[in-house]
C-alpha cells in the first residue's frame, strides 16, 4: 500500500513544483489545483473520507476559483509575464533555503523512531465527526464561523473599489 502513497506523493509534489515554477499564473493555479487534489487523494488513502471531500470541495471548488478570479482581476495584459530583474538570484536562494528546510525535516523524521501504527485505517464516520463538532468542539466551530464571516466582510471591504475608477482599473 506504500506504493499508492508514493505515487500520490510524487504526483502531488510534482504538480506543486511545476505550479510554483511555471511563469504562467493560470497554469500554476491549475497545476496547484491538481496538487491539492493529490493531497485529497492522500486523505482518502489515509481513510479520512470527509477531510478529503472537504479538501476538494473547498480548495478545488472555491479557493482555486477565487485565485483565478484574482488573477484575472490583476493581470494587465497577457504578456506582462516577463521575469522581473533579480528573479534568478532570489530563486536560487529560495531553492537553497527550501532544500535546507527539507533536509533538516527529513533528517529529523528519519532519526525519530515512531511506534508502529494500526495496520487498518481507523473508522471515523461523518456522524462521529458531527458529534465531535457539535459537542466538544462546538466553541471552536463557532469561532471559526465568526472568523469566516469577518474574513468575508474584510475581503469585500478591502477589494471593493473605493471611489471612482482609477486609471489602473481598465478592464
Amino acid at each position, binding site marked *: 500500500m506504500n506504493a499508492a502513497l508514493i505515487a500520490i506523493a510524487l504526483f502531488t509534489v510534482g504538480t506543486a513544483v511545476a505550479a510554483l515554477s511555471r511563469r504562467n499564473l493560470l497554469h500554476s493555479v491549475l497545476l496547484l489545483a491538481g496538487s491539492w487534489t493529490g493531497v485529497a487523494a492522500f486523505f482518502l488513502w489515509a481513510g479520512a473520507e470527509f477531510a478529503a471531500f472537504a479538501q476538494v470541495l473547498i480548495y478545488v471548488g472555491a479557493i482555486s476559483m477565487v485565485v483565478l478570479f484574482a488573477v484575472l482581476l490583476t493581470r494587465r495584459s497577457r504578456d506582462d509575464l516577463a521575469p522581473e530583474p533579480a528573479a534568478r538570484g*532570489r530563486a536560487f*536562494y*529560495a531553492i537553497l*533555503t*527550501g532544500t*535546507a*528546510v527539507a533536509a*533538516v*525535516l527529513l*533528517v*529529523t523524521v528519519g*532519526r525519530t523512531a515512531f511506534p508502529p501504527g494500526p495496520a487498518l485505517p481507523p473508522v471515523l464516520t461523518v456522524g462521529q465527526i458531527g458529534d465531535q463538532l457539535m459537542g466538544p468542539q462546538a466553541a471552536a466551530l463557532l469561532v471559526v464561523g465568526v472568523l469566516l464571516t469577518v474574513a468575508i466582510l474584510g475581503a469585500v471591504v478591502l477589494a471593493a473599489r473605493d471611489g471612482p475608477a482609477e486609471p489602473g482599473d481598465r478592464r
Partner: protein
Amino acid sequence: MPPLLEHLWVIPALPLVAAALAAVTPRRGRRFAAGAAIAAMLGALAVSGWALCLALADPAAHRVANFTWFALGEGAVRLGWLLDPLTALMAVMVSLVSLLIFVFSLGYMAEDGNFTRFFCFLSLFAAAMLGVIVANSLLLLFICWELVGVASYLLIGFWFHRPAAAAAAKKAFLVTRIGDLGLLLGLVWLYDATGSLLLYDGGHGVLEAGVLAGLATPGVAGGLAASTAIGLLIFCGAAGKSGQFPLHVWLPDAMEGPTPVSALIHAATMVAAGVFLIARIYPLMAADQALAGVPFHALTVVAGIGAITALLGAMIASAQHDLKRILAYSTISQLGYMMLALGVGSWVAAIFHLLTHAFFKALLFLGAGSVIHAAHHEQDIRRLGGLRGPLRTTFATFAVGMMALSGVPFFFSGFWSKEAIVRAASEWSVSSLPLCAALAGVALTAFYMTRLMCEVFGGAARSPDAAHARESPPSMTGPLIGLAAGAIALGFLGTPAWPWLQSRLTGTRIAPRSLLEGGGLMALSILLVAAGLAAGWALYGRRPRTTAAAPDPLAAAAPRLYAFLGARMKFDELYAATVGRLHAFAARLADFLDSRVWDASVRMLARLGERTGAANSAADSAGLNAGFDAGSARIRGVGRAYSRAQTGEAHGYLRVLAVGFVVLALLALLGGGR
C-alpha cells in the same frame, strides 16, 4: 421553602430595571423616570416586607438559595441569596428610606436639568445596595459593593461642572478603593483558605462552624490566626466604606453631592454598608475570640478604631460651619459608635443603632436639604438663622432628629440604641477606654447638635437668603414627617424592657430587663446629654450671634483648639504631607532616572558612535592609502548587509524565519545527537 427565596434577586432587580429605564429615557421624560424609580422602590419595599415576615417566622434560620454561576475547571463559582432577619430588616430599612428620599428628590431636584440621570443613578445605587444586602456570597457582595462605590462616585460628582464636586467624587472613589483593596485581598485569602466564598452553604459556608474552626488556628503572620488576618483585611474595606478613622476623610467632602444623595448614601445606607458587612461576617470576625496567646483579636482592633472614630468625629463636628459637614462628621462619629458596638461584641446593638441612625440621620439631612433649598443653597450656619418662623415643619422634624441623635431620653430612638451600645461597652472585659470614648462622645454629640439648632433656627436671619426663606413643598416635607415618625417609634423596638429586635436578630429569646438594673450607667449618660445640651445652650442659645462675621463663642473660649478642629485636625494636610509627598517623590525619581541616567547613557553611546565615525571619516578623507578606503568600504558594506534585513519586504522576513528555523533545528539535532 417558599418560592420567594429563590427569587430574592427580585428585590435588587426592580431598582436595576428602573435604572435601565431611566437610562434610556430622554431628558424630558422626567415624570416617567421618577415614576419608574419610585414604583420600583415600592415594589422592592413590598417584597422585602414579605421577606421580613418570612424571616421573622423562624429568626434562627439562615435560609439560602445557592446556584452555580459558572464552572471553572473542576471548581465552580457559586453565588446565592441569603434570607435571615438581618437581611430582611436591612432590606426593609434601605428600601423604605430610599423610597422616602426618592420622593424628597422629586422636590429637591425639580429644577435640575439632568433629572432623569439623577434618578437613574439613584436607582442604580439602590439596586447595588440591596444586592449587597441579599447576597449570600462574598463574591456577589463584593461585586455589588463596588457597584455601590461606582454609584456613589457618580452621585457625588453629579454636579461635575463644579470642580469641588468632581474632586470630592474622585477623592471618595480613591480613598474607598484603598479599603476595597484590603477587602479584595481578604476575599482572595479566604477563598484560598476555604475554597468557597458562600456565607452559608449547608455546613460548607465560610461562616459555619466547621470551616471557621479550620480558620481559627494561630500561626500565620506574627502568631495571628488566619481568621484574624482575613477579618482585619475585610475590615479595611468596611472602614473605607463607613469612613472609619484613617479613611474617613472622603466622607465630609462627599457632601458636595446633592443633599438627597448625602442623605441616602452618606448617612443612611452606603456608609452603613461597612457596619452591615462586619455584622454579616460576625462569626468570622469573632472566630478568634476563644484563642489565647494571639497578640490581639480582630474585634479588639475594630473596637479601638470605632472608639477613636466616634470621639474624633464628634470633636471635629463641633467646630464646623458648613451645615452638611457638621452632619457628615456626626455621621462619622455615629458610625464609630456602631463599629465600637461591633468590636465590643454586641453586633445586635450595632445593627439597632444602624437602623435608628438611618432614620434620624436621613431625617436630619433631608431637613438640612429643606433648609438649604429654602435658603437658596446657603449652607453656612453662620449666615443662616431665624428659620424657626418660616420653616415650621422643617424645624419641628429637624428638632426631632436632633433630639434623637443627641440621645434625649426615653422618647427618641437614638437614646435607646445609644444606651445599648454604651451598656455593651461597659460590659466589655478587655478595656474600658471605649466606654470613656463613648460617654465623651455622647456629651459632645448633644453639644454640637444644640449648637447646630441654635445657629440655624434660633436668633435672627443673618443673610438675605435666610431672610427670604420659604417652606419647602409637601413632596419634601412629607418624607420629613415620615422619617420623624420612624425616628421616634423605632426606638421602642429595642428597649431593654422589651428586646424584640435583639431577640429577633439573634434568634434567641432574650429575657427582658427592667430599666433600673444598670440604671446607674443610663443615668450617667443622661446626665452627660443634659450637660451637653446645657453647654450648647449656654454658648449659642442664650445670646445668639447677631452678624455672620461675629466670632464663634467656642473660638473665643479656646482659639487654638477651635482652629485645629476647624481645620478638621489637619488630616488632609497630613495625608498630603505623607502619602502625597511620597507619590510626588516617586514621580520625580522616575523622571530623574529617565532624563538623567538612561538618556545620558544613550547620549553617551551616541557621542561615542559619532566620535568613531568622525575618526573613521577623518582617516578616510586623509586618504593616505587605499587600505583605509577598502576598510571603510567593507565597513559600509557590512552596514548595508545589516540594513538589508530592514527591507519592509515580506520575502526577507519569510527567509529569515526559514533560515532561523533551520539553524535552530540543526542545533536541536546536533544537541540531540549525543
